């Protein structure tokens, strides 16, 4: 009989790789603090892999681990380690990870610039390139109920169900609603005026694009209850029937 309760499966995760020429605790502390100050929430408890391929001295892994904990980061392992460094890292309770081939080249070049972060995900982009790759939209399968609030940060929001009266859906990108929109929809929340709202059935309390909004009073007319696309044109919301 096979054990149904236990399952081991391989999986790929996006992890940030930290490369730094000087891996002394003091240099890391100074560099990381500066980096984190720019976006403290973004890196909060972020899992991080330390690239030791280019380090000149033997890093004090235990002390670095301590530093990461202090800065609210999670050091999960090291990459690019030789046999000796690998052993030391493992003794400090860190995983020794293998770096992908393409990424090796990428980190080599970026390693020269201290404190650069490169994102080690499937497509092996470093952070500079990732801007050209579309971010995944936030997809919600269920109905959004009254009192619930959803925010798709930096991306599109797609809702398969209905958005109930008193619910709010907010996105920095476009909003697509394949059910009825009875609540509030706020697209281009970060100020992008090119974003739009699409809904299968418009009965909204409020729609807003980049801060320009209409209440249900103004919406009740030609497009009420219809499939509608809402966009911003010359500072005015413009409604158009879909299909």
């Amino acid at each position, binding site marked *: 009989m096979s054990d149904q309760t236990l399952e081991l499966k391989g999986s790929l995760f996006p992890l940030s790789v930290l490369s730094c020429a000087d891996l002394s605790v003091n240099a890391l502390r100074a560099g990381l603090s500066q980096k984190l100050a720019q976006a403290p929430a973004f890196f909060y408890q972020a899992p991080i892999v330390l690239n030791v391929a280019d380090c000149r001295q033997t890093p004090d892994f235990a002390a670095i681990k301590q530093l990461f904990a202090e800065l609210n980061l999670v050091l999960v392992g090291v990459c690019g380690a030789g046999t000796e460094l690998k052993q030391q890292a493992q003794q400090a309770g860190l995983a020794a990870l293998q770096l992908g081939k393409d990424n090796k080249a990428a980190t080599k070049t970026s390693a020269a610039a201290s404190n650069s972060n490169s994102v080690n995900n499937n497509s092996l982009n470093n952070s500079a390139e990732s801007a050209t790759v579309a971010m995944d939209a936030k997809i919600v399968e269920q*109905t*959004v*109920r009254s*009192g619930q609030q959803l925010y798709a940060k930096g991306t599109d929001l797609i809702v398969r*169900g209905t958005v109930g*009266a008193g619910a709010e859906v907010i996105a920095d990108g476009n909003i697509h609603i394949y059910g*009825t929109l*009875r609540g509030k929809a706020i697209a281009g929340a970060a100020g992008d005026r090119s974003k739009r709202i699409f809904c299968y059935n418009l009965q909204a309390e409020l729609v807003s694009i980049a801060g320009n909004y209409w209440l249900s009073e103004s919406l009740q007319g030609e497009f009420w209850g219809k499939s509608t696309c809402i966009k911003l044109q010359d500072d005015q919301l413009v409604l158009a029937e879909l299909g």
Partner: protein
Amino acid sequence: MAKIIVVTSGKGGVGKTTSSAAIGTGLALKGHKTVIIDFDIGLRNLDLIMGCERRVVYDFVNVINGEANLKQTLIKDKRTDNLFILPASQTRDKDALSKAGVEKVLNELAKDFDFILCDSPAGIESGAMMALYFADEAIVVTNPEVSSVRDSDRILGMLASKSRRAEQGLDAIKEHLLLTRYNPERVEKGEMLSVEDVKEILSIDLLGVIPESQAVLNASNSGQPVILDSESDAGQAYLDTVERLLGEKVPFRFLTVEKKGLLKRIFGG
């Protein structure tokens, strides 16, 4: 394994306690050992609807605090076998319930009972959250009017995010819609939302439709669950509801205006 069902609504006065009493009695009539718990601490009502207010000695809060055991506290219904009531405390407030305490009582009841019906207080504060937290299924009682529907929508959101099943990533709570105080005549006149309207807004399965009926008020005042009044339309509708809850396929009744008399049909009108 006992099934824990919460009867909830968000809005007050829609018929949660009436429905809890009727459905609990119906389940017991069908031979399932059932207990109804009154979670409305401080506004105890279930005992009145069930007609056992004079037999309340200890209450739910006493059990949680260890001042009485379940055996002392449970009130056995005199009319229906297999039916017990766990009354709320009238002198305490809703903060008297703790999650750990409620869980302990539910676990103990689960050993003996087939169904545990939790009659939720109105609102979305701690009392209502406590009533729905441990539920396996939920009966969302809704009146065919906009404010009740919106509050039900809010509670459905809570069921999907604030319950034990949601927090532990288990299968979602099974949600049932129970439409009460339904008046087909007023629906026809456009004064009330129709079954279809409510179903469309809330998008959950319909468990039952209880017609607006004098029998409900009479039953409440006489302390007798309306389901025992098998002559009445509301009583029959609750019986249908219980059968659907037990998985039977029963057609919906009392959804349309009663047919006009013969004379009226001939001469129109």
